[in-house]
């Protein structure tokens, strides 16, 4: 078991004929992901390394019976690409693109209310169920199939670091996903935690947050009220100066809100095992998860 994606997931790639799109479609395909088609308007009928290209998402869905899409298109066109996938009623939309204007995401987020699709991202590494399906730009080989740990994070390479340490400790993963570093995104921590709680194969969860906003605080309260699986938490940005945007558009401490300290306090108060030092995360997980695995 896993959350959101597995070996039967059929995946499209929006922006497949671009340099990034072609490369990552190939990487996902090599990992074993069932990439069934790509979309680039005006290039329908062509193929990229054997993957058929369509002019629009609806046509691609009709021809391939796809249920997920990976969006790798430039920021000016990414919001529209998400809406097109929503309109085609795909189950899962993974948007990798970084740098989408916030106003576009405000419209997308409100426009998606009540719709069938789930959005992961934007500005995220994607989602992987190790050994089954990779929809994203993360390096496949660092992962270890079979569970029992679920990983959810706001970051990219920091997630790889966490996963690598878990694998080093012999702790496999059910599903790992990055929900993105933008201020307005689709799937949030609580959505992922809910899915991990409901997934029988996931026995424990690692949650990786960073400064800015209050998603980690809300997630911590939710965990305390709803989860019976152990959670290890890590927050990046203890040393970040206030008022500065730390790379990710969403990573900013403003008006004294969104600090790492506040998030760590919320985690501790809600029974989450807080990892103080990134170098020891794998080890801490090994200790914290011994009882349940």
């Amino acid at each position, binding site marked *: 078991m896993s959350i959101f994606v597995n070996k039967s997931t059929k995946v499209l790639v929006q922006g497949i004929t671009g340099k990034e799109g072609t490369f990552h479609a190939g990487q996902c395909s090599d990992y074993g992901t069932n990439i069934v088609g790509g979309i680039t308007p005006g290039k329908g009928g062509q193929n990229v390394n054997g993957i058929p290209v369509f002019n629009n998402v609806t046509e691609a869905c009709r021809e391939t019976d796809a249920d997920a899409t990976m969006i790798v298109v430039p920021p*000016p066109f990414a919001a529209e690409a998400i809406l097109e996938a929503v309109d085609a009623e795909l189950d899962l939309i993974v948007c990798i693109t970084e740098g989408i204007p916030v106003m576009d995401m*405000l419209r997308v987020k409100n426009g998606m209310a009540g719709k069938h699709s789930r959005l992961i991202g934007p500005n995220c590494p994607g989602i992987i169920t190790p050994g089954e399906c990779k929809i994203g730009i993360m390096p496949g080989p660092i992962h270890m199939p079979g569970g029992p740990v679920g990983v959810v994070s706001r970051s990219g390479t920091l997630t790889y670091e966490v996963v690598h340490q878990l694998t080093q400790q012999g702790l496999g993963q059910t599903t790992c996903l990055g929900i993105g570093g933008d*201020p307005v995104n689709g799937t949030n921590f609580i959505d992922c935690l809910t899915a991990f709680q409901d997934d029988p194969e996931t026995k424990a969860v690692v949650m990786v947050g960073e400064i800015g906003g209050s998603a980690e605080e809300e997630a911590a309260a939710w965990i305390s009220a709803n989860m019976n699986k152990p959670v290890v938490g890590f927050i990046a940005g203890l*040393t*970040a100066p206030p008022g500065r945007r730390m790379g*990710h558009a969403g990573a900013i401490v403003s008006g004294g809100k969104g600090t790492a300290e506040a998030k760590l306090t919320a985690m501790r108060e809600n029974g989450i095992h807080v990892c103080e*030092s990134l170098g020891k995360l794998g080890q801490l997980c090994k200790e914290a998860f011994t009882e349940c695995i």
Partner: protein
Amino acid sequence: MKIQEYQAKQLFLQSGIPVPTGQTCTTKEDISPLLAKMKMPVAVKAQILAGGRGKGGGVVLAKTTAAAQEAAENILGMQLVTKQTGAEGTEVKTILFEQGVDIAKELYLSMLVDREHAGIVIIASRDGGMNIETVAEETPERIITVHVNPLLGLQGYQIRELIFGLGIEPAVVKSFGGIVRKLFSLFMQYDCSLVEINPLVITSDEEIIALDAKVDIDSNSLFRHPDILAMHDSSEEDELEAAAASHGLNYIRLDGTIGSMVNGAGLAMATMDLIKQAGVEPANFLDVGGGASAEMVEKGFRIILSDSNVRGIFINIFGGILRCDILAEGVVTAAKKVGLSLPVIVRMEGTNVEEGRRILADSGLTLTNATDLSHAAELLAAI
């Protein structure tokens, strides 16, 4: 991206939001002829991006031409120090002269992106001219908050909520409502992340005027706002930060002595934290991008080495898609090119890591290999 007050007021004027009659001035020779055309009193306002200008002595209300002349000569060219500029202050290159207005009432009005509700929030208060954070803390009941759905737009009842909440008098209700509408349109049209008018004044002859103007625009949206991009002036930014930005690097300068170079923003933040936990202070945040290339590594080296406070460098790269051997070659080439003499700790993980480590070891450079992050922390503490 922040823009100057006078630039924000140009946008206001284009949108039909009244601002005081004003003139900008950039040279001391222009002060006298510009003032000769204005009626007293005149406000003399330093144009810098940092807040707290008034308290720092950058805003003076002059009753006579002589007083305005003196204030302008003092302010233009000064190093203005405010709570946001740091101790060095910021050089005032432009001042704004504005006709004084006869104030009957001062209000506060702002709009900003609300990430939690995925919408726009309008904040208003009848305590104009005061620090809004102080008002929110001491008298929260005097703050009115309205949430606007970006798809539905600003509704009439929401404007009325502001009007009744602020106790706007019947004579100015119509013009106040018009200003809120126009400001909201401007907010949406220009992809603003914040617009703030503090104070928004009602004059004794019942006009409403934006006495101040603060506008921040979402940097991600600049591709569709060439007019705003043209306003960008890097002279108020840190020199190194501006240089890094022009190379596509995400760099923020800090006060410490250990420079770091990392791929990915989250890992870069966590690396800064690790440096601090090792008992030394981070000199910077530097994200060379999730898929860092050898060229980016070289550019990163140059930026870090331009900071004379740096005593050592920590490179933390999680080579995912990008192979470690390629990265190691990039590090070696870059280090040789820039003539590196500081101690460097390299922690590298991911695809082809063994080959990468061998390249670093054989390079003849004084690079120290950290086997993992805990080992890196020990090495950092020893610098």
